[in-house]
Structure formats: structure tokens, C-alpha cells
């Protein structure tokens, strides 16, 4: 088939930020999937809650402090996260490095807190359906948190190597974006796990 050139795209940039970049949409896709996974897990929790006369079953509600501490750290982490976002848009390599290290440390701290939270659930996964669903939900969110922390660490390392190319700043902003989702996902789960059994 003959072709007629009607437009030249040579001047377009080779990467973009946010909805202009492919990886951002990939992140959106995975957030939709995981969000749906959480929604189903929440639905399962509520279903079991509804069919059981006593809730929590044979246990006292989880101790409040680990989940609450996490919620606080999550909310505060939005500040350094947002700063990392800004410096990445400005392509300020030195500050991006600091931002990523801070975010990685926050992630690791949250994983440690998460360990305490498991220890303070006051139920085992095999005690009852209540224990099972609580462990499942916390397990799902922990996997989610751990992969994001892993991602942040790898990205931080990349930014200290020759791979710190301009378009990698766009990856940093996607990482920031995804972290907001990790935070956002935690809040309803926190309410569900720590407060619903106290109703």
C-alpha cells in the first residue's frame, strides 16, 4: 500500500509524566486489580461477620497500637512522598536520592511495625474463620507493602548508578503515585481490622 507522510513526530519527547507515560497506566491497572482483590477480601470479612452471631470469634479484638501507629506513619509519609514527587519533576537528582532513601526507610519501618501487628492480632489463623480472614487481609496488604518497598529500594539503587537517566525520574513519580495507593488501601483495612470487632 502506498503511504503519504502527513505528520512528523520527531520533536516529541521520549518520556512523559503521569498519564502521558505508559508505566503510569500499568500502575493504574495493577491498582485496579489489587483494589478489587482488597474489595473482595473486605466483602469476605463482612460476609463472615454477618453469618456469625459472635464477632470476633473466641478472641479479643486486635491490640490497637500497631495498626494505629501504622496509620499515623502512613499518613505522615505522604509529606516526604509528595516532596519526592516535586523534586523528581524538577529532575533534581541529589534530592531524589534523598527522597527515595527516606521513603525506603519508612517502608522498612512499616514492615517492622507490621510484624508487631501480626503478633498483636490476639488470634491465630487457624482459631476460627475470624482469625483466618484477619490473617488473610493482613497478609495481602503486607505482600502489597513489601513489593512496593522492594520496588522503591531497587529504584533508589538505580538512581545511584549510571542508569539515572532523565526518563527514570518519571519512574520515580510513578513510584510516588503507587505509594499513595498503598496508603489509601490501608485506611479502610485498618478500620475493618481494628475497629469493626469493637462495634
Amino acid at each position, binding site marked *: 500500500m*502506498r503511504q503519504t507522510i502527513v*505528520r512528523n513526530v520527531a520533536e516529541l519527547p*521520549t518520556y512523559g509524566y503521569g498519564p502521558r507515560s*505508559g508505566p503510569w497506566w500499568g500502575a493504574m491497572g495493577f491498582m485496579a486489580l489489587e483494589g478489587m482483590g482488597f474489595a473482595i477480601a473486605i466483602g469476605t470479612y463482612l460476609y463472615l461477620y454477618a453469618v456469625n452471631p459472635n464477632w470476633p470469634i473466641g478472641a479479643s479484638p486486635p491490640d490497637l497500637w500497631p495498626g494505629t501507629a501504622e496509620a499515623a506513619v502512613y499518613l505522615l509519609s505522604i509529606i516526604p512522598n509528595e516532596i519526592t514527587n516535586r523534586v523528581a519533576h524538577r529532575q533534581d537528582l541529589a534530592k531524589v536520592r534523598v527522597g527515595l532513601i527516606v521513603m525506603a526507610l519508612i517502608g522498612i519501618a512499616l514492615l517492622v511495625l507490621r510484624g508487631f501487628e501480626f503478633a498483636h492480632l490476639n488470634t491465630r489463623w487457624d482459631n476460627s474463620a475470624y482469625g483466618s480472614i484477619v490473617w488473610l487481609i493482613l497478609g495481602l496488604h503486607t505482600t502489597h507493602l513489601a513489593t512496593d518497598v522492594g520496588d522503591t529500594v531497587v529504584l533508589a539503587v538505580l538512581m545511584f548508578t549510571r542508569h539515572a537517566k532523565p526518563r527514570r525520574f518519571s519512574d520515580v513519580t510513578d513510584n510516588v503515585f503507587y505509594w499513595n495507593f498503598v496508603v489509601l488501601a490501608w485506611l479502610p483495612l485498618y478500620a475493618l481490622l481494628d475497629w469493626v470487632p469493637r462495634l
Partner: protein
Amino acid sequence: MSTVVDRDELRDDVLNGLQLSTQLERIWRTPSGLAGALMSVEHKVVGRRYILTAFAFLLLGGILAILMRIQLAGPEKTFLSADKYNQIFTMHGSTMMFLFAVPVMEAFAVYLVPLMVGTRNIAFPRLNAFSYWMFLFGGCFLWISFLFNVGPDVGWFSYVPLSSLQFTPTKRADVWAQMITFTEVAALAVAVEIVVTVFKLRAPGMTLDRIPLFVWAMLVTSFLVMFAMPSIMVASTSLILDRLVNTRFYDPSSGGHPLLWQHLFWFFGHPEVYIIFIPGTGMVSAILATFARRPVIGYPVVILSLIGTGFLSFGLWVHHMFVTGLPQLGAGLFTASSMLIAVPSGLQIFCWLATLWDGRPVYRTPLLFVIGFIVIFVIGGLSGVMVASVPIDTQVHDTYFVVAHFHYVLIGGAVFPLIGAVYYWFPKIAGRMLSERLGRWNFWLAFIGFNVAFFPMHFLGLIGMPRRVYTYTADMDWAHLNLLSSIGAIVFALSFALLLVNVVYSLRKGALAGDNPWNASTLEWATSSPPPPQNFDRIPVVKHRDPLWADGESLPVVAGLSAERREVLLTSLAEAEPQTREASPEPSIWPLLTAIATTVFFIGSIFTPWAVLWGTPPMAVTLIGWFWPSGSKEDEE
């Protein structure tokens, strides 16, 4: 090639036709040899493999179907034991649903969608390669287990408590649950890729109302996958946890609930039917427009009904649970919405019939299969409206009436369009035409065989034959209809053998296809058959809904992309305005290694919970290898 001018890299606008093709081919080609095959991230290579593998599973599932029909051909046969029969119908259902029907549709999308939207590769090609390996390993895992006599035997829906440890103490149900996870990971990955490809990689000017209907269908399907499959993953993970580490999700003695399984399963299982059917309608629209020689009438209506079907399909899962004793009001509501879903499907059928009516149809094999589809699907739809009402469902639930109904819907709705699609797109994929003569034989054998096999099952159901029984006694008067059904099944199977013969023969001896043998209107026909590794030498610009019909002999294109590295053009969501030129990944071995690590993790965890510990580091290492940007041209500078 030293024609580089004022810019620092070679661009396609300084190369002429032949130079450009050779140069792009060199950059986009999959490396040769075994290593290249294992590293390929080209959507056409992966798509072809995916299609072939899915058809291999169709063959396996089909063999099991024939074994069942031999056993049921007469009363009190001893060809299969009750135990083997249970395994076989479970393997048949699981293979057909999880290893054939969904994957084959996604596989066609992997091959076709990038071509149809006018881009060079799918979004996230490495994820795509990973997805294929996961599908392959998950499918092999299921079948190897079956051959070693640890295959599942609890039905394709694995109802608890039957599938609980108490009633299935062997590994059979674990194999089933883990196979689900494999195939769902694969399906979810492809769904995300398709969505992003359609959203961001469309050719400039392909606005939302110029997207081909097949691509629309795959977009809607991908969303259904994304919202339905997490449910079955949560369900099967909970099941396997109950079995392996003693959680209590489905155990009523500790607050669990068996009905929870059915809710989670059917929240996925009902949309699943539409995940299989909607791509079929997309294939129908594509084939119909080409052979009716006019665009499908009611383009916006078709899209709205696709979206409507998608939404409604989520409201319907409870109709699989009428006999579990739901509150009256709920049952009424779900009956109504089950009947409502017939409306969008009906609208689409009217649009297709009008198109045929108004066009100048050429009755080639692909169109025959489309017409077969319409006939069979309408019958399946009618029996569907019947089982959607609570009183009738209560009567025929778990009888052969249901078996007849869902094969009419699944085979009519998906397999007939699919075979039509094979005839339609084979010339593009293979560069040669399939034999039309064998094609006609293929169609008539399939159409007659299918109806002879499945129509009698309606009557068998009405006179009381239950499903999932391995034999029956002579005094039941079921023998004649069963024999007829078995003969039909064999004829139907022969039609597939004929398809295979046709494919093998035509690959060598078929007439050369040329770029656009059917004179179709969509972009996949604007490039050579089979398409070169880069798909298009220059990215097309779309100005009409049917670009190849509207633009006649000269296709508008863009220039200015890199000719020395893999680059794709990203466009805006609604208007498809060019935005960026983004790098597309090079071939890589890491997706395969990641899939192997994941497989070890999944299978290991069936046998020991510790696999979760020692299985994680290899996965982490391979994932880092995957994302580490070495090997990409930009990073090597």
C-alpha cells in the same frame, strides 16, 4: 547507513522504503535460535504460541469429552469407572474454561490488538512473555498431575465441602486450586496489557469512535477479567489455605461458611461466561463487516451493548445459587436481571442481521461460521432465559438440560466465532489462505455434529437425566438419545480434525494471501502477511472508522520515530493525539526465569508451607533482573 543528519540519532524520515524496512526489521526482530525463542517479547511470536497452546488444550479437553461420550453412549457401560469419570469431567471443564476458552481469546488479542490499533508492540511486552510462560506451566502442571493420577476430581467449580480436606484428602483439590492461580495471573497480566495498549498505543487519529469493534470487545473483556478474576483468586487461595495450613474459611464448625465459596466462585464464574462470549462477538463483528462488504450497522449500539453486558454480568452470579435457598425478594431480583441481560445481546444480533441484510454478503467460510454462531447462540439464549427463572431452574437444575444450555452458549457463543476467526485471520498470521473447500466441509460437519450432539441433551434433561453421572440403567429410556448424542459428538470432533488437516496442508500448499486478501477495512490488513517484526514501517494515521476502505490506495502515516532503537508512539486517551515516543523493551530471558521461580514457589507450597520462605528469594532476584535496565540501548550509551 551513514545518512544521519543534524540530529544525534537515526530517524525514519531520512530513510527510504527499503532501507527503512531492513533497518527496522533488524532492530525489532526476535533473535534467532533457541535463546532467541526463549527471550522473545514480540507480541506476534508470543501471541502465536499462546494460540497454539490454547488449541492444544482444546484438543486434550476434546479427547476427554469424547471419552465421556463413549462411556455414556449406552446404558451400564464399563468403559470408565465412576472415579475416572469424575476426574475426566473435572479435567474437561477445567481445561475448557481455564486453559482453552479464556486464554485463546486473550491470545488472539495479544496477536491482533497491536496490529489493529496500528502500533509496533503490545504495552509491557515482558509481562506478556511472562504471562505466556505462566499459562504454559500452569496448564502443564494440571495435565501432568492428571496423568500421574493426582488430577482434580471435584468439578470445574470445586464446591466445598466436597473439595475440603475432609472429603478430598489427597492433593487433587490443591492441584486444582493452584492451577487457578497460575492461569489467573496470566489472564490478569494480559488484561492490563490490552487495556493499556488500547488506551495509549493507538495510532494517531484513532479516536474512541474509530476503534475497531473487535478491539472494543477485547477492551471490555479485559475489564471484566480485571474485576472478576480477583474473586476466584481470593476463593481458591482461601481454599488451599484451609487445606494446607488449617484456616477455617469454609469450615462451619469454626465460623466459616460453605456458601461463601459459591458466592466468591460465581461472582467470578458468571462474568467468566461473558469473558468468553464478548470476544466472540468482537470476532463476529469483524468478520461480518468484511464479508457483508459494509460497516456494521449501529456501531455505537454495539459498543453500548458490549459495555452493558459487561456491567450486567456482575449482577447475575446468584442465579447459579437459586436452589441454595435465598430470600424470595433476592431471587426475584436476580431472575429479572438475568433476563435483562438478554437485551444487549439481542440488540447486537439485530445489528448484525441488519448488516447482513443491507450488505452484499459473500458466503466464504468465516461468514458461514458466523451464521452458525447466530443460530446456535439464539437457541442457547432461549434455554438461558428458561433457566433464569426460578421455577424452571429448580426443575432442571443439575440435569442434562443445563449441560445442553451451557454448551450451546459456550460453543455457539465462542467456539463457532473462534473457528470463523481462524479462517479469517489465518492468512494474516501465516501468509497463506486456508482451503475454502475443506472449510465448507469443516463448517457443515461442525454445525450438524454439534446440534446432533447437544440438542438431544435438552430432552434428556427434561426426562430426568442428571448431570455428572457416569452411567445409567436401561430401564430409564435414556439410551437412544444418548447414543445419538455420542454420534454427534464424534462428528463434531471430526470437524476439528478437518480443521487441523486444513491448517497443516495450507501452511505449505495454501494460496499466497497478500496483504489484504478479503479486502477488509482495519489496520492489521495494511501491513504484509505475515507482518514484519516492526508491524508497520511507518505508523498509520487514522481518519475514518474503516481506514482501508476510506483511504483507498494511499495510507496517511507519520514519520520521525527512531530507526535505531525500539520506539513506540504514545497517544492521548480520547483523541489519540501523539504525545511521546517511548522505548519498548528488548528481548529478555528474565520473564521466563521469573515464571520458573514462580512455578517452583506455587507448586512447592502445595507440599510444604516453607516453600513460601525459600521460594520468595528466587522470585525477588528474577524480578530485579527483569526490571534492571541493562541491555536497553538508552542505558548502554
